[in-house]
């Protein structure tokens, strides 16, 4: 019982710091791999010839064979589905900002009874699982004639995107001092003019980011799209339905078609998304 275990020797501070760095780097690499490897494989397989996709061994490098992509794009219904996706996503974007921004403004600027409850309810809409709602929704949509329309689907997607739109715009508006608006009022503006001339320019980048966010929510949504549309399928719904029975290389091409726009959009507004979360988490 004389010596301490050798590992209990005191260590230099630099050592522990280096160890911490190690953990940090490893975690970062793993997280990045978790996101990037599937995306990379998706690209590789999309840009390889059909035989390479199903063949073995793999090179792990794309051969830049566009056969799959070309075939996919000429696949009947793809162009139409792509168009539907864009229409629904744009409608969702417009609706969720159109409804969400005023709600966010009211939450940040006015005191009214039930404000806290309202905020809770806004978030609560995300608590109901879509599969539970899908069937009654489909029935209702058929009754009012909204079934299988872009507008109908956009409504559902708007419900999904709205909580984010409200909360994000709420924090955007809260970041603008009320004195700026008040100053505009004393300088000759009415409420609307002050909003357009002072508040809008200041929140525009954030507003665009949250609009793009709504767009991607709609773009990626598959369940409601699959249930509520038949003829006018969005790309996700179309792919889920038709790719189940397609060869492997087509599945990859379809996957890429879905991922790329979302990636580009999120990449374009990444700065504002970070800033937004920074504010939203306050």
């Amino acid at each position, binding site marked *: 019982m004389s010596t301490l275990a050798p590992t209990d020797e005191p260590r230099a501070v630099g050592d522990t710091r280096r160890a911490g760095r190690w953990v940090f780097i490893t975690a970062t690499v793993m997280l990045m791999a978790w996101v990037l490897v599937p995306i990379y494989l998706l690209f590789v397989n999309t840009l390889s010839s059909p035989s390479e996709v199903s063949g073995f061994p793999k090179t792990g490098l794309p051969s830049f064979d566009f056969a799959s992509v070309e075939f996919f794009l000429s696949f009947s219904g793809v162009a139409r589905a792509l168009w539907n996706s864009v229409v629904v996503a744009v409608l969702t974007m417009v609706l969720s900002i159109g409804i969400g921004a005023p709600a966010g403004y009211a939450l940040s600027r006015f005191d009214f009874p039930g404000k806290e409850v309202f905020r809770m309810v806004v978030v609560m809409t995300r608590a109901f699982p879509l599969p539970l709602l899908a069937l009654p929704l489909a029935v209702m949509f058929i009754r009012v004639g909204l079934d299988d329309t872009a507008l109908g689907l956009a409504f559902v997607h708007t419900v999904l995107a709205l909580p984010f739109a409200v909360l994000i715009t709420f924090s955007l508006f809260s970041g603008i*001092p009320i004195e700026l608006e008040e*100053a505009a*009022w*004393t300088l000759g503006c009415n409420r609307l003019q002050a909003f357009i001339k002072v508040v809008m320019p*200041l929140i525009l980048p954030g507003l665009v980011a949250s609009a793009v966010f709504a767009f991607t929510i709609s773009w990626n949504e598959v369940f409601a799209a699959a249930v509520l549309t038949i003829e006018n399928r969005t790309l996700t719904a179309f792919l889920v339905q038709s790719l189940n029975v397609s060869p492997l290389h087509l599945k990859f091409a379809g996957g890429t078609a879905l991922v790329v726009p979302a990636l580009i959009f999120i990449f374009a507004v990444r700065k504002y998304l970070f800033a937004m979360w920074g504010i939203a988490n306050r």
Partner: protein
Amino acid sequence: MAEIIIKQVAKSFGTFQALHSIDMTIRDREFMVLLGASGCGKTTLLRIIAGLETPSQGEVWIGGRRVDHLPPRERGIAMVFQNYAVFPHLTVFENIAFGLRMKKLPQQEIDKRVNRTAELMHIEQLLKRYSGQLSGGQRQRVAVARALAMEPDVILMDEPLSNLDALLRLEMRAELKGVLAESKSTAIYVTHDQVEAMSLADRISVMNGGKIVQNASPVEIYRDPAARFVGSFIGNPPMNFIKANRQDIGRWRVAGLDLYGPSHGASSLEFAIRPEDLTIGEGGFIATARVVEPLGAHTLVTCEVDGKPFRAVLDSDLKVAPGDVLTLIPKPDRIRWFDPETLLAV
């Protein structure tokens, strides 16, 4: 002509009464300062005049027009906010031009006015900058220039100098006074700094607890405080107060001295004197010096009279040391008396 009349204006936030029935008249082109401690309702009153807050009751008239139901833009006012509220997305030029563009003035007139006010506020070399590229003092100038460019009937300022350092504040104070004297605007200026109030005002309204306690010229406020609060709030060091007991009609006993005073029915009053209205001589208050602070021209001596602290500002030629016993004579014409019940002057 922009006379401002405030009639029985009151404001409550929920159950909290921030303003109690305020009555006030501000004459055309007058420089009125609202002075009071933090939380006494100065900003609230200013915002009611501006139309940014609705009064719970009462009327506001500007230039013979009742305005309390009108939005800010229809009241002919301009306001300088405490945090300046310079629009961050516009250049200094566009900030100053903002209100003029809203008025749809021709570009030529806008240029003229912006350049003139910018020159007046010494910011003509900053016109292309954004507010993020300005110092606090420069932002403050932009805020004032933006208000002045409107050539408003009434200019409202809420502690515009409070965020500046002491030196800049002194400089801006003098400039503001000059600039506003030349403009045709009636000015209301909110501050809790009594020196600022004294130096700027044509008239001061001293507020306390949501009420106006006194409304008079700076000198009158200083010399003849209408209430004990005014005497203790204005002046640095503040007034001294000593309890006075009635001896006879018009005769009061104050810390061992018999003094002639008001023939008031009460059994006791409060005797009050400003620290600088005391001289050393025979037959005054017996005061023991406790703290001696040389201030250059004068020496501030904190003594003890009747067991209570009592301040005197004496000539610095007099050599006083802590522990010395002084006899301090109040100048008879500067003595004031307050009723301890109502706290008002008698």
